């Protein structure tokens, strides 16, 4: 079962214990979900490792282990596989443009989105699932 994940979910899984880290822990063993994310997300995460270190007080080695645990469970989808859904996503999200790539990806794969973003959830309640 495909499930789009956004940066909020990834960062939460990497730096904070909670419902999202439990989802990643369980999925590592039972593989219920096939997590997917836009390809560009993994490149951008690399630009924020210093902030992750600063907030967690992890050593660089430990942070890499945590990142690897989370990121290895995600399949990164090239832009050309979902950019034909951008116009439709933009129409649905109106002014909330930052979430267009995640909704476009969900439309392309006909699946839901796991996100902790309350605004995103309020605009697309049927498609966005929040971790509880």
């Amino acid at each position: 079962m495909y499930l789009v994940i956004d940066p909020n979910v990834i960062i939460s899984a990497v730096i904070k214990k909670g419902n999202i880290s439990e989802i990643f822990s369980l999925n590592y063993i039972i593989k219920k979900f096939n997590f997917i994310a836009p390809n560009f997300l993994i490149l951008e995460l690399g630009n924020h490792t210093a902030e992750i270190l600063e907030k967690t007080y992890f050593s660089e080695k430990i942070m890499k282990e945590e990142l690897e645990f989370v990121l290895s469970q995600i399949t990164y989808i090239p832009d050309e596989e979902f950019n034909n859904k951008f116009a439709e996503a933009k129409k649905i999200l109106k002014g909330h443009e930052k979430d267009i790539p995640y909704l476009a990806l969900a439309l392309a794969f006909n699946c839901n989105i796991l996100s902790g973003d309350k605004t995103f959830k309020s605009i697309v309640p049927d498609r966005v699932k929040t971790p509880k």
Partner: protein
Amino acid sequence: MVFFSNSNIAKKIRKVAKYNEILSKSKATDKDVEEISNKIKDAIWKHYSKE
């Protein structure tokens, strides 16, 4: 645990336990998660809005 000692599932359980043990030592808060993820979302949107 002895039952699983040589299996692939035992390795996975150990890895999950280590992941959670490390996370329990993190000083990060919900606010930190929001702050970093918003910056990443902004940067990603900048990339896609150029296309």
